């Protein structure tokens, strides 16, 4: 019997572990394409039909869209990408000031940034939502996006990277009379692909995972985000599992398509913070 390659056992083991972790997602995808009545029928007793659908349909998706879920998905995507766009801009500007510009009390200002990322947003969401409602700012994109744009951890991460950019570049540009904004925009931002992607993913996941905050500051369909819309399906008297699973597929697919190709940069940006 030929000797097994050295990588055989670990590959087999990680394959088994991954298969276990993937099972709920595979079941989710397969069930979303089943007729509603078939979904629970195939769970117990255990047969291959759990993974292999007997009948395939896209009815769940069309029903979900007809029921206005498209609006909720649009809201979630708009909020997440809007926050990433605005957040990358203002967080990197703050990081630039905290790394390249010398000004009095810089250390103190940086300490404030650090304190803000020690504050867990989930914990202060409830009183803050009360204020937002009192000011009649609930049910608006501003209320939904607001907490996710400025991010202390993103500022911290970008600053760590900016500090590693050779100061000579900054000085040479200053001698040539280049404005600070041009230095930021033409030198620092283009050099910072990995930490910008890392910060973007942090902001994206914050908004994509948001559940309690949207629950607190919206109560109209117009501003409902997708996870809240789906969670409400389960609370309704006549709840349609097929639509819920179809929605779950969409909500898992969008971030997977956005984040997985960029995962390499995310790992690099973790390295930059000194975690590893």
């Amino acid at each position, binding site marked *: 019997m030929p000797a097994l390659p050295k990588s055989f056992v670990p590959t087999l083991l990680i394959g088994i572990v991954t298969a276990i972790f993937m099972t709920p997602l595979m079941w989710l995808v397969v069930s979303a394409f089943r007729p509603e009545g078939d979904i629970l029928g195939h769970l117990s007793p255990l047969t291959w039909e759990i993974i292999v659908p007997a009948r395939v349909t896209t009815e769940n998706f069309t029903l979900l869209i007809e029921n206005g879920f498209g609006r909720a998905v649009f809201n979630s995507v708009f909020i997440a990408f809007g926050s990433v766009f605005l957040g990358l801009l203002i967080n990197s500007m703050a990081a630039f000031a905290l790394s390249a510009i010398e000004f009095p009390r810089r250390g103190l200002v940086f300490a404030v940034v650090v304190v803000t990322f020690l504050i867990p947003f989930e914990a202060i969401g409830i009183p803050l939502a009360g204020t937002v409602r009192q000011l009649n700012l609930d049910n608006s994109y501003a209320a939904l996006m607001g907490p996710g744009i400025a991010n202390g951890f993103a500022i911290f991460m970008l600053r760590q990277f900016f*500090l590693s950019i050779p100061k000579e570049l*900054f000085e040479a540009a200053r001698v040539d009379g280049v404005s600070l904004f041009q230095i930021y925009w033409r030198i620092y931002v283009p050099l910072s692909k990995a930490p910008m992607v890392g910060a973007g993913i942090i902001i994206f996941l914050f908004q994509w995972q948001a559940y309690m905050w949207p629950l607190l500051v919206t109560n109209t369909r117009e501003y409902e985000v997708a996870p809240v819309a789906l969670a409400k399906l389960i609370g309704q008297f006549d709840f349609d599992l097929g639509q819920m699973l179809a929605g779950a597929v969409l909500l898992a697919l969008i971030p997977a398509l956005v984040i997985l190709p960029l995962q390499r940069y995310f790992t690099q940006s973790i390295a930059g913070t000194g975690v590893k």
Partner: protein
Amino acid sequence: MSADSSINLTRGGALLSPGSVEDKKGRHQATLSAILFLSPAFVLLILFRLAPVIQVFFDSFLNSSSEWVGLENYRFLLESDSFLNSIRVTLLFNVLINPIQIVMALGMALLIVDGAKKPGMWQTLNLLPVVVPLAISSLIWGVAFRPDDGIINAILIAVGLPEQRWLTSADQAMMSIIILASWVGVGYWSLFLVAGLHQVPKDVMEAATLDGARYWRTLWYVRLPLMRRPLAFVLVADTAVNLLLFAPVQILTRGGPVDSTNLVMFDIYRNAFVFADLPLAAAETVLLLIVVMAIVGLQFFMLNQRRSGS
């Protein structure tokens, strides 16, 4: 680091504008630019982070009619069975889930780093659960845990084990939430540990690929001690996340059965919205903030130590 850059900047400033008056003007201008660069992020951080903390702190000394009651809310909390039970449940949950997640994440990271083919593919696949919104994962697992027609009981029956009550049993509901939260978290935390394992020097890694007893000894005495910082980071960050867990409880158990999954974040939500006692929720939030900030502060302190040490 900062001493270094200040020397450089002074030199740059001198090149730009010789003479002390000009120099002072340059510094003034730098401060003005810094304010312009900082203000958008700072306004938002103050509005959405700092101001609410100050507000919740003040609210915790008021009653429902906005009258000053001093420490009354705190006294009430510390004497309330519901709050004490919620603390007990939250601590038990964390004592169980954090070691479970870290051991599993470490195991996964070791398999990925030590010789599995296509490490990037496994890493990517196991990262998928964390990109699914937690509210959605909770819904999927809620279906899987159904006692009568759920897939998990179907698997138990197929391998000859007795069915379980899962989320509907006061004894098993917390375990069910641990399973679901670990499904989400393990792949994510292993990402940080893979990054850490890659930092362990090459010659140690070569000894590690040898099989048998030598592997485990190298792991235990050489590699894990070198992994102290990434492990500590993951432990602290994971604890902060799990102290604040909310969505699975709100969606699946509403704290029950018989308060067995009444994690403190859900207890706060319930005090605020079911019992409409916002000041009490504020006092509870202050206590939670103190604990979480102490833990996350510790994490930041350790990260900083790492940087100045290297």
